[in-house]
């Protein structure tokens, strides 16, 4: 079960037509899919569209009522290939994943799909993970649209606009027999807003009809000579059809009356930021009434040459807002203007920035330089927003200088009680004996190992590619194998074949650690094949060790509790020193603590209320024995292990402390032992509703201990001042 439940929110999907829907972008998209009569949906989780997958999963009942099939695809490639159902049949299909990484994985299937074209509408919803908050390399999905000739929608960040784009996206796809990509920007996914609903539609044509009356058309299959035909079709039929549709339906918007002899062209996704910039400069109002004409590209590929020429007519200059690089649109529009012998000069990256996010600061400054060039009289120079002032101006919002030395970065890291942390503690301890190894890392929470305090891992080549990333390190003359990490998510995504199978086949000596926390945890705790939980709509509990043995791994070991640091350390040493040929696979198993706590905490509270014996554990540190060297923090990095002012009247340095958020995972105790740390750690056990035996033991012990303690205190008498009693 996913980390966040949408069980309640999905009820909004039943809102009847004509009412105002309030909610998040991901819910709005799901509603729009249902309003469009979608027949099947697939996808792979990953921010920013993880929660779209979670919504769809939680909405399964509603989807089923409408005859919609939903799958958690094994990978983005699987999801893309699923759209094959729309090739021969009028079935509407939608898939979703994180982009560009997911689109990379999907691109083989997408290219084949786009070549032959589609009959039913095919919508690819890409969560564009670009800019602040992104966790991946900074690239654009735009390139995929161009190379495979799929149309790319980039609607304004407004729920009505997003919902509309889903609906016309399907129509455009069908009208031009081309898959359509819908770019959902990072902030749009969790954008809370509202729109007016329409009726949910059952698909007119059903999958059952398709399955029972199979159709084929060999000309839709990518094999010569059809593949050559497809290229001609794309240029001569599908593209013109798409352009016609986009023009007829006025999907791109021309806002304002074109009074000024210069204008703005913007990607739809940047529209709100651009309008805010104009408003701050006194050139527009909050309703989008602008003094400067704006041409909004809700379709960013293809660019409609006629519309650009029309907009550029009688204008001296245009300013293009196109985020990211390369500047595909700028090149495209320049080419259109050149071919049309237009005189308008195109600005864009010259007054904005070539690389990086188009933040309000970047956009407003760019707008100001542009307007100053062409109509300086429109600018009230003595009433400018602070952000465009020179950085040394006292009115500049960053005039108060706080330095990064005072405000530290807070990068994400392992959670309190994370079962992955002890894996790296154990590896550090094992390396004390075996020496350091080259470590190939993967994508997932375990990648936090590359940060302090662990500093483990040299490269990461992509999801599930940790083992493959170690493939180059093969040398019979070395007895020091390389280590590779992989998460259970990446393992089932592709790692089993691209990594494990590859290592078996090529007789690699690598040691592969598969981190099995029972979920695709980093993306929000979605279930996968090896999940330990029962899932009513999926098949789970398929052990990873059985899978690797199935593809020929001889040396495989599952450690079922990663908090047993000693056992894990010894397993590492065994694997790293083993003479057995071929890959050695360690499956390090313990449930993701974030999901476990969410599941167990309410149960424990309920049991306690019902009078059952419940044991709660947490750790602590004795302030008098802790000397404040913080070595325990340096080998753990747990958020609940922190520092606090030293209560010792003579010491100045802060001491370590355990915050009340401690979940008692046990690593502090294991570390204190395994690394021979210091005697300050202790574990407190609190038993609620103790049994009779508990109470008997405690009464006896307390009597004994109090007696000795009275003697102890007697010996300390005369050091502290006596309390004056009345």
């Amino acid at each position: 079960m996913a980390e966040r439940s949408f069980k309640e929110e999905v009820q909004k999907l039943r809102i009847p037509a004509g009412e105002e829907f309030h909610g998040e972008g991901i819910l709005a998209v799901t509603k729009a899919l249902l309003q469009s009569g979608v027949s099947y949906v697939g996808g792979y989780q990953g921010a920013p569209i993880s929660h779209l997958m979670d919504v769809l999963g939680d909405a399964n009942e509603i989807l089923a009522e409408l005859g919609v099939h939903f799958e958690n695809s094994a990978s983005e490639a699987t999801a893309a290939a699923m759209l094959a159902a729309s090739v021969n049949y009028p079935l509407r299909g939608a898939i979703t994943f994180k982009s560009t990484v997911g689109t990379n994985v999907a691109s083989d299937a997408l290219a084949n799909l786009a070549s032959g074209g589609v009959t039913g509408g095919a919508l690819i919803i890409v969560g564009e993970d670009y800019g602040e908050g992104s966790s991946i390399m900074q690239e654009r999905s735009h390139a995929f649209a161009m190379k495979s000739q799929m149309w790319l929608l980039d609607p304004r960040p407004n729920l009505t606009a997003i919902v509309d784009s889903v609906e016309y996206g399907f129509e455009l796809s069908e009208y031009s027999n081309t898959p359509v990509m819908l770019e959902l920007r990072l902030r749009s996914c969790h954008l809370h807003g509202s729109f007016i609903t329409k009726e949910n539609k059952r698909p007119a044509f059903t999958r059952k009809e398709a399955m029972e009356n199979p159709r084929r058309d060999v000309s839709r299959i990518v094999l010569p000579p059809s593949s050559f035909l497809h290229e001609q079709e794309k240029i001569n039929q599908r593209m013109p059809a798409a352009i016609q549709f986009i023009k007829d339906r006025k999907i791109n918007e021309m806002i304002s009356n074109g009074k000024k002899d210069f204008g703005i062209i913007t990607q739809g996704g940047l529209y709100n930021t651009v309008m805010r910039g104009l408003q701050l400069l006194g050139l527009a109002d909050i309703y989008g009434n602008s003094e400067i004409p704006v041409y909004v590209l809700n379709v960013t590929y293809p660019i409609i040459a006629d519309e650009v020429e029309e907009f550029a007519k009688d204008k001296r200059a245009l300013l293009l807002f196109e985020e990211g690089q390369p500047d595909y649109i700028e090149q495209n529009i320049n080419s259109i203007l050149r071919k049309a012998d237009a005189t308008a000069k195109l600005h864009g990256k010259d007054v904005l920035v070539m690389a990086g996010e188009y933040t309000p600061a970047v956009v407003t400054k760019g707008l100001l330089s542009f307007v100053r060039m062409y109509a300086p009289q429109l600018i009230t120079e003595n009433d400018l927003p602070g952000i465009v002032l020179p950085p040394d101006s006292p009115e500049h919002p960053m005039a108060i200088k706080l330095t990064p030395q005072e405000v530290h970065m807070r990068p994400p890291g392992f959670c309190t009680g994370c079962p992955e942390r002890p894996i790296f503690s154990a590896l550090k301890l094992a390396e004390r004996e075996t020496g350091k190894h080259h470590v190939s890392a993967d994508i997932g929470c375990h990648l936090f190992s590359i940060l302090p305090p662990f500093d483990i891992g040299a490269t990461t080549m992509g999801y599930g590619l940790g083992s493959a990333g170690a493939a180059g390190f093969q040398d019979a003359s070395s007895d020091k194998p390389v280590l590779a990490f992989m998460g259970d998510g990446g393992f089932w995504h592709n790692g089993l074949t691209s990594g494990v199978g590859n290592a078996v086949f090529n007789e690699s000596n690598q040691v592969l650690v598969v981190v099995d926390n029972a979920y695709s945890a980093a993306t929000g705790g979605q279930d996968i094949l090896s999940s330990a939980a029962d899932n009513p709509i999926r098949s789970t509990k398929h052990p990873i060790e059985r899978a690797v043995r199935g593809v020929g791994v001889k040396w495989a070991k599952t450690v079922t509790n990663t908090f047993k640091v000693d056992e894990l350390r010894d397993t590492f040493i065994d694997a790293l020193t083993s003479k057995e040929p071929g890959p050695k696979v360690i499956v390090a198993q313990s449930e993701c603590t974030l999901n476990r706590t969410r599941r167990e905490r309410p149960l424990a509270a309920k049991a306690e209320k019902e009078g059952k014996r419940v044991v709660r554990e947490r750790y602590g540190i004795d302030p008098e024995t802790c000397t404040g060297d913080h070595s325990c923090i340096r080998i753990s990095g747990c958020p609940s292990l922190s520092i606090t002012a030293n209560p010792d009247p003579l010491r100045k340095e802060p001491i370590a402390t355990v915050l009340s958020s401690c979940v008692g995972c046990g690593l502090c105790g294991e570390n204190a032992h395994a690394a021979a740390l210091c005697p300050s750690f202790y574990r407190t056990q609190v038993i609620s509703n103790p049994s009779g035996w508990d109470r008997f033991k405690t009464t006896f012990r307390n009597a004994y201990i109090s007696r000795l303690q009275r003697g102890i205190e007697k010996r300390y008498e005369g050091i502290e001042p006596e309390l004056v009693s009345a």
Partner: protein
Amino acid sequence: MSQPTQERAITMAILAMGGEGGGVLADWMVSLGEHSGYWAQTTSVPGVAQRTGATIYYVELFPRTPGGAEPILSTMPTPGEVDIVLASELMEAGRSVLRGLVTPKNTTLITSTHRVYSMMEKTSLGDGRVDSDSIIENCMKAAAKFVGGDFSKIAEESGSVISSVLFGALAGTGRLPFSRQEFEGAIERSGVGVAPSLKAFARGFDYAEKILKPAPAGVPIQIGIKPVSVEETKAVTDAAISADPVAAVGARLKKLAAHIRDTYPASVRATLVHGIKRTTEYQDVEYANEFLARIASVYELDLVHGDGSFRLTQETARYTALWMTYEDTIRVAAIKVRARRFDRIHKEARAKNEQVVGIMEFLHPQVQEVADTLPTALGKWVLGSKPVNALINRISGDGIKVNTTSAFGYTTLYILSRLRPIRRRSLRFNEEQLLIDAWLTTVMDVATTNYALACEVAETQSLVKGYGETHANGLANFNLIMAELPRTLASADPVARIRQLREAALAEESGARLRALL
């Protein structure tokens, strides 16, 4: 086209760390806005930042008019154009200032002033904490209105979370055009933990209302904003001790305290009193006498060569007391068995009377530590004997767990704590005394020629701390710096050099950076 209207949206940013309830707060704001006839938009950046990282939520509100057009709301805050910033912690408030979200023109900054330390602050070998006062000062300078308080404490006292207190403080500022009932309605509609949330909300509301009232003349506005720090409490206690050292000790130490009062200046008395109490607790009154005898010779030099601050006496006394009470197994056991520790742990675990509390220690006594506690000859024999080494390793090699709440576990630690009388004859005791005297001799030698440098040498002792490997590394670094001292005397600024070396030793545990400097 008509002249653009000057209406603008209400803009609000929330800075929080993953899992702190920033999302809940944003949801309340949206619910509040939508129920009060406003367009409401919120955005956040999902993804890995939820794993303990810093996150910014952004909310815009705009009044709805019947049949009126929908406003264009921004998905990102513009520096300099944010009306209200809420921060769940002080460094996050600092981040909002760093990012330009707070301006004296229009921003109300509402923040909790407690600290959640960053990894950089936590992993330092010494004190890596940033200066809270500087952040607060900058926040006050940056904001039009500043509402800061220890909301973490308020949340805990109300059995709720920080977001409820922040929401209450937001209502209390009166910055939003909504009534208190409308705010409370948003909490009620969310349906989760309503009663404690409303309690925390009320406390936050009152707090903001009170703090925004004009202060009576002469009362500094900072009072109460920041949690009272342990350092401030210590300063108050120390002042009382200096004024009357005799009252600060029990019967056995009255004579020594009177001696301190009659002999030493006020600025060092508290440290000396702490020193005699600590050494007595550690060993006996005789040991406290030895401590004072050691400091007496330093003080004499301070009178001649000092600058009147008695910094040398002060710092030497501090580190002599700490070094004389070095962490051996007897001390650890003595601390673990005391009644006050049991009380503290019960409180910390929030155990109720009917609950049963167990305490488990994680100890890892090593051969060296065992030998250290034994009488010198026996200790040396243990260190040299392979079979004994093997035996100790077999028992404690993987660490031992001791249940201090069981009769057996408690008795074990109790017996260890009663070994105090044999300490004076132990292997380590004699070694440590020699080291202390050598260091004191150096301090005093240097004091005759360079007072400031002598103070630095005294403070270098702070490197020696911890247990096992950490202690060994610290001592090695200390020795390296001491060995460098003669060469330093020839350098242009020996004081700066020693301080630089000490900081290098604190920067990195293995001492690699220190060795690079040498």
